[in-house]
């Protein structure tokens, strides 16, 4: 930690920039296990990034560091001009400005869809209930399930639950959206409805980082695709070159397996 | 059940309390001892049978007798009318006087003064009956499992007064000299050996034993040993 802080100071203050996310020399260990190995990544505002790689390669770890669900041991992460490694209030600010969608939805089972969407705006931002519900209904409309507002998560299909999770994140008005395999817990026929929602979001210019194996989606919306293995970023580039002209051996192998 | 069946079996099962000093205690080698134990042993010697002492408690001693777990109770069982409906009593073999005790500065001189006071007693004991009989309605009687708890309640100030026998009172005096004294003398309570209802033949034999023990001074000796005084008149005479 002290080292990370020292780094942060050395790297000096750059002033506001166009970068949504800036990662520099990031290293993370779980005990002795090196989960992220010198990761460097710059994401511009409005950029859409897709991350892929084999299981255990550190994809989840990478995006979970961005809103500090995981703490890094070395390096520097700046999100929307808030230096996370400097600690303090910044972590709270970053969490309010990033929305996250998980593989397993993680809706709150004891709250209705509407309550799921209004909890954080009310308790974190202090917005009134009426106001919060208005916003929530707007976003539920946008993910095309306005009629499910009063239901409980368990009464929805997986695809519907994931769309609620997206709406819930959007209700906080985030500047960046993080997705961790949002479709891989879904039945095949529900994958499309969730991907469509994400494509809509991308079209509206949301900054997105998305871990996924849906290569069709990557080709369609990604500005850049990243391949990770054993905690390292091994290849990174626009979808065309990434898929049709992979350079890295392990990536070639990986693409062979998943298609 | 008759004396004959007991004698031919060679042992008699006698229930006694072991938490009621000095009538029933466990001695330092953790054997039942005390006035009741000696009386029971005397009876065994008299009848030529082995005595098996079964420890009982205040609340369960009568069930023990009724359910044939013991042949006799020599368990400091005060002779009362209510109890006489459920068991048959021998003539008295012991007696205690019951009084109300309390802190020296508590003013009580007649039963009416108990009004509004809290009085601790051992549940289902002779003291319980005696105090309940004289106490006015607004006295609060608190019933504990045994005398030790009642005494502890007095010592810790949880109750203002307790109803106990003169014997226990001596012990309180030992434990806290000068702090407490007797407020009221309630009754003199005689205690009998109990047999199951309808065991007339056995009762006769027990009565014969008690009479003999009184007559030849054995009972007196035991009383001297445990209570430091001769058998009181109200027991001896009856």
């Amino acid at each position, binding site marked *: 930690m002290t080292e990370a802080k020292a780094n942060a100071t050395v790297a000096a203050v750059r002033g506001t920039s166009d970068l949504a996310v800036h990662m520099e020399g990031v290293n993370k260990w779980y005990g002795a296990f090196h989960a992220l190995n010198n990761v460097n990544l710059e994401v511009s505002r409005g950029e859409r990034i897709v991350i892929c790689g084999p299981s255990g390669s550190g994809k989840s770890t990478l995006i979970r560091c961005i*809103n500090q*669900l995981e703490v890094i041991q070395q390096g520097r992460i700046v999100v929307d001009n808030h230096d996370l490694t400097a600690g303090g209030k910044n972590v*709270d600010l970053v*969490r*309010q400005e*990033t*929305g*996250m969608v*998980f593989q*397993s939805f*993680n*809706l*709150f*089972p*004891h*709250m209705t869809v509407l309550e799921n969407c209004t*909890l*954080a705006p009310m*308790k*974190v931002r202090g917005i009134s209930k009426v106001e919060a519900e208005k916003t929530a209904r707007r976003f539920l409309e946008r993910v095309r399930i306005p009629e499910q507002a009063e239901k*409980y*998560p*368990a*009464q929805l299909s997986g695809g519907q639950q994931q769309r609620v999770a997206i709406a*819930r*994140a959007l209700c*906080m008005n985030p500047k960046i959206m993080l997705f961790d395999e949002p479709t891989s817990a879904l039945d095949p026929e529900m994958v499309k409805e969730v991907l469509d929602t994400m494509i809509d979001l991308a079209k509206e210019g949301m900054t997105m980082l998305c871990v996924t194996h849906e290569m069709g989606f990557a080709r369609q919306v990604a500005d850049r695709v990243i391949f990770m293995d054993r905690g390292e970023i091994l290849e990174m580039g626009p979808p065309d070159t990434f898929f049709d002209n992979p350079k890295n051996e392990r990536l070639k192998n990986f693409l062979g397996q998943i298609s | 059940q008759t004396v004959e069946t007991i004698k031919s079996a060679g042992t008699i099962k006698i229930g006694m309390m072991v938490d009621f000093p000095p009538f029933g205690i466990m001695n330092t080698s953790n054997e039942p001892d005390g006035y009741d134990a000696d009386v029971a042993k005397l009876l065994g010697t008299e009848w030529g049978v082995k005595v098996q002492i079964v420890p009982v408690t*205040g*609340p*369960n001693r*009568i*069930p023990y007798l*009724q*359910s044939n777990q013991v042949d006799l109770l020599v368990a400091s069982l005060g002779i009362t009318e*209510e*109890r006489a*409906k*459920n*068991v048959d009593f021998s003539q008295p073999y012991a007696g205690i006087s019951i009084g109300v005790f309390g802190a020296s500065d508590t003013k009580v001189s007649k039963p009416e003064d108990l009004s509004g006071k809290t009085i*601790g007693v051992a*549940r*289902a004991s002779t003291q*319980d009956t005696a105090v309940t009989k004289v106490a006015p309605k607004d006295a609060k009687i*608190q*019933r*504990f*499992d045994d005398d030790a*708890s009642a005494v*502890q*309640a007095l010592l*810790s*100030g*949880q109750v203002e007064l307790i109803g106990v026998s003169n014997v226990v009172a001596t012990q309180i005096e030992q434990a806290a000299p000068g702090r407490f004294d007797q407020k009221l003398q309630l009754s003199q309570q005689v205690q009998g050996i109990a047999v199951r209802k309808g065991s007339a033949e056995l009762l006769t034999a027990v009565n014969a034993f008690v009479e003999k023990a009184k007559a030849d001074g054995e009972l007196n000796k035991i009383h001297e040993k445990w209570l430091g005084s001769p058998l009181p008149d109200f027991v001896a005479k009856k």
Partner: protein
Amino acid sequence: MYTFNFEPVLAGFDKLLIGALVTVQLSCAAMVIGLIVSILCAAGKTSRVAPLRWVIDAYIEIIRNTPFLVQIFFIFFGLPALGIRLSPNSAALVALVVNFGAYGTEIIRAGIESIQKGQIEAGTALGLSKLKIFRYIIMKPALRTVYPALTSQFIYLMLTSSVVSAISADDLAAAGNDLQSATFASFEVYIVITAMYLVMSIGFSAVFSMIEKVAFRYPLSR
């Protein structure tokens, strides 16, 4: 052969009913207060302040590994030495709360641990503070998963409360003991109060399942 005679029991039945009422009141009050104690202690056990965790651990271990009777003796006879004098019924209540609190803490802690990590992460990612996550996200589902354990612990508490007659509290067991010492109809009294305890525990089970239906209406996923 013994002949049963329930007449004296019926004559004193009103006293038994009053005793049963005291038992119900004591148990219910102990549960409500004990539940609050449990929740606070369970939350305290997740705290970063180590001494707080140690104190809570010591409390739990001492209570869970010693008999209730001894606990109640110390509260009734021992506390006056510290200047705290409680009436028998309040001492009984305090003892029951202390006892239920220790078991309840363990139960609720298990409930909290059963909450999937993803729930907490989702709350964190939304920017909610730890306290708010506990209050709004963890609390209710945690209580729901351990609800059966809590209710059976409560029933156990109610049955255990029969011991409070030892400090002259006037619960059902005390009423039964008084009645049997007055009438010597021991078996009849015991049969009747056993049945009364059974009725109370079945009654409570029924009430609890009604509460469950109202309090935890949200459906569980398959």
